[in-house]
C-alpha cells in the first residue's frame, strides 16, 4: 500500500473535475485521480453547445435563460442555484475562450451561437440562439482546453486510478480517499483536507444509453455507501434522438440547425404537440411525443423508432456544423443524412439527480442543508439542483464550469479551517476485503450477467413512460440482483490492469443507484419533467413539489424530502 498527502483530492477529470482543479492549481497541493486518462472522460462526447446569454447573434438576457431553465426543469429547480448558473454563464464561457477554446465564430469574429431545445426569447415567445458551440464537438473542445490548461498549470494527475472508498474521521469529516491503481493493482491511501467528487453520470444503468462505459455512477455509489443521501435520482433524462438500437447521441444541435423529426407518415409531428417550439420543445416532451407516436403505430415500419430528417439542410451546414453526428449516422447505421432520415429513438442520457450539494459544492446530508465537512461534489454526479426534473440541453456543460469552479473556490476558503485530520487506523481495510473477496471467490454469479439483467429491466420499465406494475417488477429484479451480487466472482485474478475486477466494482454502485431510481420513481405518484407516470399523468405540486433524498439503511433504503427553493417564478402549467 502506498500513502500520499495532498491538500485536495479531486476525483474525476471531466469538465467538472478539471474546472475545480484549475481553480486550485498553484494555490494548494492538488491531486486529480481518474479511472480514465483525462482526455477520455465523457465530457469529450458532448456535442451541441454550452449555454450563455451572450447575445452575440440576437438579443438575449440571463433572466430569459433563468426562466427557461426553471420551466424546463418543471419547477423542481432550486431557483437561487439556477440564477447563479445563468449569471455566471457569460463569464464562464468567455473564460473558456480566453483559455484557448476554438469556438465556431460569427462573421464579426465573436463566439457563434445556435438554437437549442427549450431555450427561448422573452419568456417563451420562440427559440433563441443561446448555445455557444464549436461545430458539433463542443464537449471535446471543452475537455481538451481544460486539459491543456491543466498541463500548462502543472496539475498532478493520477491517471488510471479507480476510487474505491472515501475516508471519514469519527466525527464525520471526509479526510481522504482509497484508490486502486489499475496498472499495478496497488492500493493507495490519499490523505487530504478536502475531497471533490466529479465522477460523472450513471447512464450505464440502462441498456440503451448515450453514456460511456465508464459512466457507472461510482462517486454517487461510494458516497451513498458512506451514508450520504442521493437526491432526485428518479429523474433520468431520455434524449429524444439516440441512434436506433445503439443509443449513440445525435445532438439537439441537429434540430437547432433546422432538423425535423418525422413519423411513418412523414408528418413533422412535434408541431402537433408543441405548436410554438415544435421540434425544439424540451427533451422530456420530445421523448414523450416520440414514445406516443410509436405507441400509436406511427413508428417507421411499425417499429420502435422514427426519423430525424436533415435532408432539407444545405450540405455545407451539415459538413460545417454537424460533421461528427453525420459521420455517426454513416458509420453506425449506413445512413447518408444529406439524403435520408436518420433512425432515432430516445436514449438514457443524463442523470439529473445525484449527490446533494449547496450552491458552493459542499455536500449536504439532509433537507436542512447540513454540510458534510471536507466533502464536495460537482458536475453530473452532483445535484445542486439546477436541472430539476429535466435538464435543458447545453446547461450541463455550463454546470461543470460554473459549479466546478465554485466548488474549487469554496475549498480554497475552507482550507484555512480544515486540517489533515487524524486518519482512522488502516482506512483501506474495507477496500482490501472487498477486493480480496471478489478475487478470491472461485464460483458464484458473473458480473456481466447481473449487469445485463439490470440494464434490460431498467430500459424496459424505467424509461420514458413508467407505471406502478413495471416499476415494482424492476425493483424486485434489482433486489434479487443485489443478492446475486453478494457472491459475484471475476475471471481475472491478477493485479495488472484487472478491468474485470473494475467492472465488478462498478456494478455494485450501479445496482444501488438502480434501486434508488426505482424506489424514487415508485414513490413519486405524479408526472414531472422526465419522470412520467402513465398512471399519474399530472404534476402534483401539492404533494410532490419537493426533492427526494434517498438514504442507505441496512440492505434497504429510507426516503426523505427536501423543499424546493422558489425565488422568482411560481410553478405554472408547462406548454411550449
Amino acid at each position, binding site marked *: 500500500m502506498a500513502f500520499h498527502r495532498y491538500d485536495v483530492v479531486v476525483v474525476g477529470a471531466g469538465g467538472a473535475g478539471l474546472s475545480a482543479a484549475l481553480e486550485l492549481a498553484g494555490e494548494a497541493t492538488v491531486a486529480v485521480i481518474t479511472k*480514465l*486518462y483525462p*482526455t*477520455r*472522460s*465523457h465530457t*469529450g*462526447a458532448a456535442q451541441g453547445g454550452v449555454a450563455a446569454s451572450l447575445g452575440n447573434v440576437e438579443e438575449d438576457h440571463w433572466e430569459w435563460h433563468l426562466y427557461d431553465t426553471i420551466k424546463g426543469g418543471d419547477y423542481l429547480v432550486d431557483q437561487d442555484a439556477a440564477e447563479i448558473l445563468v449569471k455566471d454563464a457569460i463569464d464562464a464561457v*468567455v473564460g473558456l*475562450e*480566453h*483559455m*484557448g477554446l*476554438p*469556438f*465556431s*465564430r*460569427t*462573421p*464579426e*469574429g*465573436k*463566439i457563434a451561437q445556435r438554437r437549442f431545445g427549450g431555450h427561448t426569447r422573452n419568456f417563451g415567445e420562440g427559440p433563441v440562439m443561446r448555445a455557444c458551440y*464549436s*461545430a458539433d*464537438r463542443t464537449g*471535446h*473542445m471543452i475537455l*481538451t482546453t481544460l486539459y*491543456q*490548461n491543466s*498541463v*500548462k498549470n502543472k496539475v498532478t494527475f493520477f491517471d488510471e486510478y479507480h476510487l474505491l472508498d472515501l475516508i471519514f474521521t469519527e466525527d464525520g469529516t471526509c479526510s481522504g480517499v482509497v484508490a486502486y491503481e489499475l*496498472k499495478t493493482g496497488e492500493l493507495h491511501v490519499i490523505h487530504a483536507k478536502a475531497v471533490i467528487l466529479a465522477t460523472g453520470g450513471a447512464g450505464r444503468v440502462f441498456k440503451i444509453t448515450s453514456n*460511456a*462505459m*465508464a459512466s457507472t455512477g461510482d462517486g454517487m455509489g461510494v458516497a451513498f455507501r458512506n451514508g450520504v443521501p442521493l437526491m432526485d435520482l428518479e429523474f433520468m433524462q431520455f434524449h429524444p434522438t439516440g441512434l436506433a438500437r*445503439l443509443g*449513440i447521441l445525435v445532438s439537439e444541435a441537429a434540430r437547432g440547425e433546422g432538423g425535423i423529426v418525422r413519423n411513418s407518415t412523414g408528418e413533422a409531428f412535434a408541431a402537433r404537440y408543441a405548436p410554438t417550439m415544435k421540434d425544439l420543445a424540451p427533451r422530456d416532451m420530445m421523448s414523450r411525443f416520440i414514445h406516443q407516436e410509436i405507441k400509436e403505430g406511427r413508428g417507421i415500419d411499425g417499429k420502435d423508432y422514427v426519423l430525424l430528417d436533415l435532408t432539407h439542410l444545405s450540405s455545407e451546414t451539415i459538413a460545417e456544423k454537424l460533421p*461528427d453526428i453525420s*459521420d*455517426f449516422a454513416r*458509420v*453506425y*447505421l*449506413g445512413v447518408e443524412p444529406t439524403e435520408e432520415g436518420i433512425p432515432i429513438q430516445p436514449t438514457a442520457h443524463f442523470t439529473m439527480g445525484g449527490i446533494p450539494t449547496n450552491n458552493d459544492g459542499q455536500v449536504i446530508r439532509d433537507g436542512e442543508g447540513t454540510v458534510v465537512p471536507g466533502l464536495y461534489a460537482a458536475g453530473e454526479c452532483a445535484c445542486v439542483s439546477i436541472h430539476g426534473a429535466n435538464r435543458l440541453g447545453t446547461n450541463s456543460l455550463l454546470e461543470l464550469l460554473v459549479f466546478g469552479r465554485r466548488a474549487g473556490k469554496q475549498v480554497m476558503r475552507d482550507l484555512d479551517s480544515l486540517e489533515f485530520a487524524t486518519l482512522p487506523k488502516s482506512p483501506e481495510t474495507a477496500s482490501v476485503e472487498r477486493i480480496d473477496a471478489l478475487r478470491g471467490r472461485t464460483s458464484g454469479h*458473473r458480473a*456481466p450477467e447481473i449487469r*445485463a439483467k439490470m440494464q434490460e429491466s431498467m430500459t424496459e420499465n424505467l424509461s420514458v413512460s413508467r407505471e406502478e406494475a413495471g416499476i415494482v417488477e424492476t425493483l424486485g429484479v434489482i433486489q434479487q440482483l443485489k443478492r446475486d451480487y453478494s457472491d459475484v466472482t*471475476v*475471471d*481475472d485474478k*491478477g*493485479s*495488472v*490492469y*484487472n*478491468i*474485470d475486477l473494475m467492472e465488478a466494482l462498478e456494478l455494485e454502485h450501479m445496482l444501488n443507484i438502480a434501486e434508488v431510481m426505482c424506489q424514487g420513481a415508485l414513490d413519486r405518484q405524479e408526472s414531472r419533467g422526465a419522470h412520467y407516470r402513465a398512471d399519474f399523468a399530472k404534476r402534483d405540486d401539492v404533494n410532490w413539489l419537493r426533492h427526494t433524498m434517498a438514504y442507505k439503511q441496512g440492505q434497504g433504503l429510507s426516503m426523505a424530502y427536501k423543499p424546493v427553493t422558489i425565488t422568482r417564478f411560481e410553478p405554472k402549467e408547462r406548454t411550449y
Partner: protein
Amino acid sequence: MEVTLRIKRFNPETDKKAHFEEYVVDVDPRDRVLDALNQVKWYQDGTLTYRRSCGHGICGSDAMRINGRNRLACKVLMQDLGKRVTLEPLMGFRIEKDLLVDMDVFFDKYKSVKPYLIADNPPAHGERLQSPEERHIFDDTTKCILCAACTTSCPVTWMSEDFVGPAAIVNAHRFIFDSRDTAGIERLQILNKGTGVWRCRTVFNCTDACPRDIKVTEAIEQVKRALIFGDQ
C-alpha cells in the same frame, strides 16, 4: 453471423511472450469490433483486457490493430471485416496486457510541444475576436482525440524512439496556426530539432490511420513549410 477473433494475448504476470488465442463470437453484422470484444470479455473470458469508454469514436481509448491496420475498435463494423479478424495492440509501445499498451511516452511527447494557448492578456470584457477564416485554418487539427493511431502507424516512430510523432505535431499545429497564439516560433523551434518534423518521410500512414479523418500528413507539411518560409 459467426466470426473468429484471433487476439494477441499477453499477461505480464504469467506469460513470457505474447501469443494468439482464438474466440468464436456470434455477432450482428452491424456490431462494432468493440461489441465483439465485449462479448468475449463478458461471456467467454473475463481476463481479456483492452481500454474502452465512449464506444463511438470520441474518447480515443480503443485504438488497436485490426487486420493489420490501426483503427478504433468502436468505429469499425464487423460486416466490413470478414470471417476471421485479427486484433493486436498498437505497435511501438510497450504492451502492458493483451491489447492495452503503455501510453505514458505518447503523452510525454504530446506535452513536449506546449499544447496549450500562449497569448497576450485577453480583453477585459468579452472574447477575443477571430474571423471564421482564421478559425478555419486550424479546424482540422482541433479534432485530435489522442488515440495514438497515427503515431503508432508511422514507420519512423517504430525505428526511432525520440521522434515526437504525428500526434504531437498535429497538436502543435493546432496552436501554431491559431491567430490568437503568440508562441508559434517556440513550438516551431521544438519541431525543428532532430526529434521533430524533419523525421517525417511523408508515408501517409498517419493520415490513413486517423479515425477523425484529420489530414495529418498535410498538417505536418504545413509545419515544415512554416519552418522554411516562416508563413504561419
